[in-house]
């Protein structure tokens, strides 16, 4: 009966941890869920930059010369020679005199001199990784599925899954391509862009709505519903162009949706998909972490019963999340159309796995309740960096899948270990 005699021993462990981790700015930075991903990205970029520096890619570049420029070939003793009087291997320097301006180019940097056109060709050594074209390629490739991964994060936080994203992407692209190819050649961006976006996103939204309402309404696990949808939509994507156009690729869009908007050039690259990715990531972050709708998603993933009893319309939230994922697939499909100028039936093959991989690498838990939009985008970038590394290290593309699979497993194991360590400390 004397139960009260132990009352003096209050457990006091639980409110120490937060104040410690919140102490320093650095501590706060490292405790953040995405910090690990950023560190991984920075490390990968460092390795690739160093490797790319010592194994540069070489291209040829014309050195612009004025018509009056005079070129002398100097040997190791600095004696000038006429073209043709000295073997190429003996040339130490090329001296170019243009008016009063004299500049020397070491032979190692010059490919050849064409005397008939009076043109000097330089060997252009570039860091294989750290160059504008390569970086923008990585980001652009990542953006197509990073956008879908933001939607997928919502689905996975709900403890659901959507296997149909790749097929929704391809199907919306084909329907959008049909709409765009029907437009006149010279249609302005104010026509082509809304037509493309609206068509793709409407189709995507409807597919997502079908996924959500079927899995909620019929009470079937989303794995089954979206597995079915994956096959159905992929089939439609193949059948429709075949039956109507007898082709596997629908192109012939107005230029305004390609070079005019989505593939618009800025500083020598085509950054529009990347901008859209960043925008989607920011909106996704805000919605998930700062809005009631977003917090309800986390609540449902954490404990669906508790969410129900808290008066959260669980079914409606779920349907909405699947629908938004569909919309984002449509958005991504529209970017793809504008960027590549044609919709193909095999677009987005196996994208569902890349998208799920991106969210999981980004820290989402398939058990639900955990994940962030920014994490998913960073995960997509990591996946593309791995792809890019395979190219830079000149490893056969066939090895890609092996490396990618291993990377996913390692990422999840590291993340779980981190969770466990945090749980122990907390």
């Amino acid at each position, binding site marked *: *009966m*004397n*139960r*009260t*005699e*132990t*009352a003096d*021993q*209050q*457990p*006091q*462990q*639980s*409110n120490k*941890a*937060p104040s410690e981790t919140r102490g320093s700015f650095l501590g706060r930075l490292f405790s953040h869920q995405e910090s690990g991903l950023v560190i991984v990205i920075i490390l990968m970029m460092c390795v690739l930059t160093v490797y790319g520096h010592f194994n540069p890619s070489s291209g040829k570049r014309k050195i612009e010369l004025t018509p009056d420029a005079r070129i002398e070939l100097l040997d190791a003793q600095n004696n000038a020679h006429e073209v043709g009087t000295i073997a190429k291997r003996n040339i130490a320097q090329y001296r170019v005199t243009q008016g009063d301006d004299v500049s020397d180019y070491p032979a190692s940097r010059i490919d050849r001199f064409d005397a008939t056109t009076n043109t000097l060709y330089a060997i252009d050594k570039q860091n294989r990784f750290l160059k504008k074209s390569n970086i923008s390629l990585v980001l652009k490739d990542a953006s197509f599925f990073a956008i879908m991964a933001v939607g997928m994060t919502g689905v996975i936080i709900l403890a659901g899954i959507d296997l149909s994203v790749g097929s929704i992407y391809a199907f919306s692209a084909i329907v959008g391509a049909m709409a765009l190819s029907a437009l006149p050649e010279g249609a302005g961006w104010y026509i082509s862009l809304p037509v493309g976006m609206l068509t793709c996103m409407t189709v995507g939204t409807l597919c997502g709505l079908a996924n959500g309402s079927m899995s909620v309404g019929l009470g079937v696990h989303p794995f089954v519903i979206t597995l079915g949808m994956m096959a159905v939509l992929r089939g439609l994507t193949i059948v429709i162009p075949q039956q109507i156009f007898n082709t596997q690729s629908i192109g012939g869009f107005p230029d305004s949706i390609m070079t005019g908007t989505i593939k618009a050039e800025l500083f020598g690259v085509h950054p529009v998909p990347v901008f859209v990715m960043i925008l989607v990531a920011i909106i996704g972050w*805000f919605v998930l972490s*700062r*809005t*009631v709708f*977003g*917090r*309800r998603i*986390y*609540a449902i*993933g*954490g*404990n669906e*019963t*508790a*969410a129900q*009893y*808290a*008066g*959260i319309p669980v079914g409606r939230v779920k349907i909405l999340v699947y629908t938004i994922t569909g919309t984002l697939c449509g958005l991504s499909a529209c970017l793809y159309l504008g960027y590549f100028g044609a919709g193909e039936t095999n677009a987005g093959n196996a994208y569902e796995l890349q998208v799920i991989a991106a969210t999981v690498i980004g820290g989402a838990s398939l058990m639900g*309740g*955990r994940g962030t939009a920014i994490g998913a985008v960073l995960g997509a970038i990591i996946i593309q960096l791995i792809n890019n590394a395979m190219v830079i290290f000149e490893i056969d593309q066939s090895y890609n899948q092996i490396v990618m699979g291993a990377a996913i497993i390692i990422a999840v194991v590291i993340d779980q270990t981190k969770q466990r360590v945090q*749980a122990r400390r*907390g």
Partner: protein
Amino acid sequence: MRDNPDQSKPVLTATGISKAFGITQALSDVSVSFLPGEVHALMGENGAGKSTLGKVIAGLHKQDTGTVTLKDRELIPGSLDDAFAAGVRIVHQELAQCPNLSIAENLCLHDIPKKGISVDFDEMRRRAESLVHQLDPNIDVTQPLGRLSPGRRQICQIAASLDKDDQGNNAAKVIVFDEPTSSLSLTEASTLMGITRDLAARGLTIIYVSHRMSEIFTCCDRVTVLRDGKYVATSVVKDIDEPTLVEQMIGRRISTPGAKHEQSGEGVEADAIESLVGQSNSQEPHYDQPPRLILSDVCSPGKLHNISLKLYPGEILGVGGLVGAGRSELFDAIFGIDKRVTGSINVDGDEIAGKGTKAAIEAGVGLGYVPEDRRNQGLFFNLGIDENILAPIMPDICGSFGMRRLEDELARVQSRVDKFQIKTASLRETRPNELSGGNQQKLLIARWMSERTKVLLLDEPTRGIDVGTKAEIYKLINEAADQGLAILLVSSEMPELLALSDRVLVMGEGVIKGELRGDQMTQTNILTLATDESASATIAH
């Protein structure tokens, strides 16, 4: 502590409540009224309908007939929202929270405050603090709920039930506590009971659903007993004693034969348990024979430190201590579930430390383990009674190529079911969830208490089961010990531990704090050892 509650007028009345689940009549024509400012216990065996009544009152279950009236206002049957609006709340375990969200978010989940389109985190924090800090000012509401101890989670749930709407309306008037202490340590439970009294002192009515006797006598004003879904009696706690209450619960008076350790009787609860344990094992443990189980310097990083013990044939060795003392961890270590164990674990000459579970249950070794959580660690809810009982010995009784010999199996299962008096419709078709809690527990014990078991580890063998089945299980344990089985017993119910055990080891923080024998075996001594930080094995051998 128990001031006279305002006897004037009931705040809440349940009249003629009946409720059936399928063919089971959970409640039939139950009427109870609750006074303002009282803590009113609902008691009964498992399946008596006490939880169901609490849930009907709170609107979680919809009654078939009858009404719930709060101050002349009839509540809509089965409407959680209406009950909430009227000021009736429920705190229970299945209404668990979202461990991945912060405490503040959990508390405001039904109505997250907004600022524009964004969540108003400051307002949310303020609201949560105003609720939680009434009960425990040390809780930081911004941390994830999953990091809290079970006791503090419970406090957060109670805090949530105190919530009202923006205008300050709908304040809680009646709160149903459904088995509030079932997952709490003793310390946490006593904190919770303090909070319960505190809330009652503020004029709230607390409906306290529990089967823990001590809690009823510590913090309740009145008690209503239900049996088999029917109303038995409502009494003022001051005017009733424990045997009477037990009699009301089980419908018969338990005879009180000689108890094992007279001196362990501390209060009425202990007496009741003593009476349930009944005829103690007549035979002394065989201290003259070599020990069945010898542990020397068993360690597990962060869990156990230098555990040494000897367990003799026919002995029941109790392991006492508070929750978190490392008792279940010790069992996991012995049974080979914990893989990081060092030291020596010797069963009848076989060294099994670090060899895994398979080595522990091998025919020659004969270890058995009835874990504490039968739902998650014990039973297979997708399999029949037969496979649940035979699971550990399946590989040894099957024919060639692993073919099952169904006839042979059935005979074995039948004998076990008869011996343990498990009430089941079928041996093969029935699933454990169709059994009552007590029968589930007997099923789990039947799995391990077999002729090949030499050492049995029992972790909370009577948790959450009714008194009748408890008595049966005590009898089985004593009989098995008489036949030479060596038993290591963990129980948080101290009278049970004292009444069953021949010796008691007290654990705390992963070490053995001491050993108690004979006259030393009292609740006070166990608690003193368990809570004493400096205590080592000072009390005699």
